[in-house]
């Protein structure tokens, strides 16, 4: 292969564009990270790039962890996100299994409706759901948001798992049935264990989605510190900035810690989930 253009300098524009874009994508986060270790008066009066290691302090983090509302909001985020991740995955797995390996009337029609629900804006549901939750006295409680996030996560979860279950070899199930296994046994012993990668991708997605959500929490939980997750607590703090800036830096970073950890440790599952969810086929 003769490619005349492969001289060392022809790659310079590529490097230049790539490096400058990467820098543009990293610098804002880096700026916040550095700011979060700087004393309040420095944050207010000088830029993060003037920081010297000598001035670094953990004071902002201590202040956030000592602020009862913020510490509570971190716990609340966990309390909201864990059940709201486990519930939809299990419920979706049951449904996806029925869609893939059972025959019943209107199966395809129901599944198409679920595919349609994938893009329905959550805004469409806020008013009526809020009214329902208020009528049964659940507004502002954790069960309200667990149920809401579970339901909102279901279309994507069912879609993803159905694609995955549907691609499992038919023979596997047939021989299991011949050996006398019931659909329940086949589900727990065959379908679930072989789908661990898909379940992992899904868990990461749902967890991120719930952890990062602002709108659903804002509406069904309100701003009450006893139940508000970190996103709501931070956005309240943004409203009263001025003296709060140094708190905001540390709080924002604490809220990013868990998603970033999950991201860097399980990037492969994350990418796989994105690909399976959007360009399947």
């Amino acid at each position, binding site marked *: 292969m003769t490619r005349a253009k492969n001289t060392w300098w022809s790659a310079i524009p590529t490097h230049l564009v790539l490096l400058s874009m990467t820098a543009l*994508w990293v610098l804002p986060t880096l*700026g916040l990270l550095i700011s979060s270790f700087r004393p309040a008066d420095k944050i207010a009066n000088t*830029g993060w790039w003037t920081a010297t290691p000598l001035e670094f302090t953990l004071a902002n983090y201590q202040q956030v962890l000592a602020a009862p509302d913020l510490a509570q909001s971190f716990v609340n985020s966990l309390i909201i996100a864990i059940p709201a991740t486990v519930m939809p995955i299990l419920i979706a797995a049951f449904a996806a299994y029925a869609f893939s390996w*059972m025959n019943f009337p209107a199966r395809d029609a129901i599944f198409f409706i679920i595919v349609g629900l994938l893009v329905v804006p959550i805004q*469409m549901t806020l008013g*009526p759901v809020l009214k329902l939750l208020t009528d049964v006295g659940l507004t502002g409680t954790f069960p309200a948001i667990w*149920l809401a996030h579970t339901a909102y996560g279901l279309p994507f979860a*069912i879609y993803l798992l159905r694609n995955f279950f549907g691609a499992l070899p038919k023979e596997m199930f047939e021989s299991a049935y011949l050996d006398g296994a019931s659909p329940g046994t086949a589900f727990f012993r065959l379908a679930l264990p072989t789908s661990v990668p898909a379940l992992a991708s899904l868990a990461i997605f749902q967890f991120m989605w719930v952890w*990062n959500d*602002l709108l659903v929490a804002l509406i069904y939980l309100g701003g009450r510190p006893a139940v508000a997750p970190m996103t709501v607590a931070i956005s309240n703090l943004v409203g009263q900035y001025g003296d709060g800036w140094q708190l905001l830096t540390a709080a924002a970073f604490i809220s990013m810690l868990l998603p970033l950890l999950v991201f860097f440790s399980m990037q492969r599952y994350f990418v796989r989930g994105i690909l399976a969810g959007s360009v399947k086929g």
Partner: protein
Amino acid sequence: MTRFCLNTTILLAGIVTIAVPLALVLYIVAVEALTNTLPIKTQPLIRPWLWLMPALLLLGIFLVYPVVRTIIDSFYNATSSQFVGLSNYSYIFSDTSTQGSMLNNLYWIIFFTGLSVAIGLMMAILSDKVRYGGFSKTLMFMPMVISYVAAGVIWRFVYAFRPPGSPQTGTLNAIGSAFGASPIAWLIDPLTNNASLIFVGVWTAAGFCMVILSAGLRGLPEEVLEAARVDGATEWQVFARVTMPLLLPTIAVVATTMIINALKVFDIVYVMTSGNFNTDVIANQMYKQLFISRDIGRASAIAVVLLIAVLPVMLLNIQRFKAQENR
């Protein structure tokens, strides 16, 4: 008091985390035990519905019923007590603030989608050419896991503005002043504020586009690209005449996902400007109608407009899925 509150909530969460999955598994075990006692012929008639029931119940209560209800409410007054025909719609299409929001959403659709896809495509192509490409991709992709709320905080530090003369604490204005430009109030100035918000969106979304487009690029037939090169096509010609047409279906998928995100955008605007200074978007207008004006009719009408906007994408998705199933 807080300590007590923390402890009980943690306890509650612990119980729920263990009890809920257990209850769900027990449900299926019970369903199986029950159906297995039925005659062999009736089992397949009952079983699927029992497996589907939890999902269908939740979807019905939290998605299907509310959508229908919202469509009905959009033809009723603020408290849903009186039929008002199309007056909510004529209000939202004539009110200047909702009109402004729709225009802003249009900007979001055009520039957020265009920039995210363009940058994603560029990075997907370029990162395959260098050794540190994977590292570069990871860093570009990272903002995707950061909440819009945290992204809003991050970018407030980039856009921070202080009056001319005082040292600038915002990254952008500091760079600007180093070159002698006067500082700009990025989030307030009507010339820059929408663009500034949209760029935060692009920052969170371009990595997503990059990952999908990158996988699309890998899936292209290498022989076709090589054949074009052998025939003497320049790299640019290969890109424009071969890569792009082949990649078009993937680009379409990514772009429609971005358009939907642009229509639904809420958090970034809510956190960074609360929709002030003419930066409002329809999702935030709806939030305001629902919670500040307490007007269910108008809020519902805005939601229906949003639904109509995503309807083509919804039909497209279903069609795509049907085609995929029949293959």
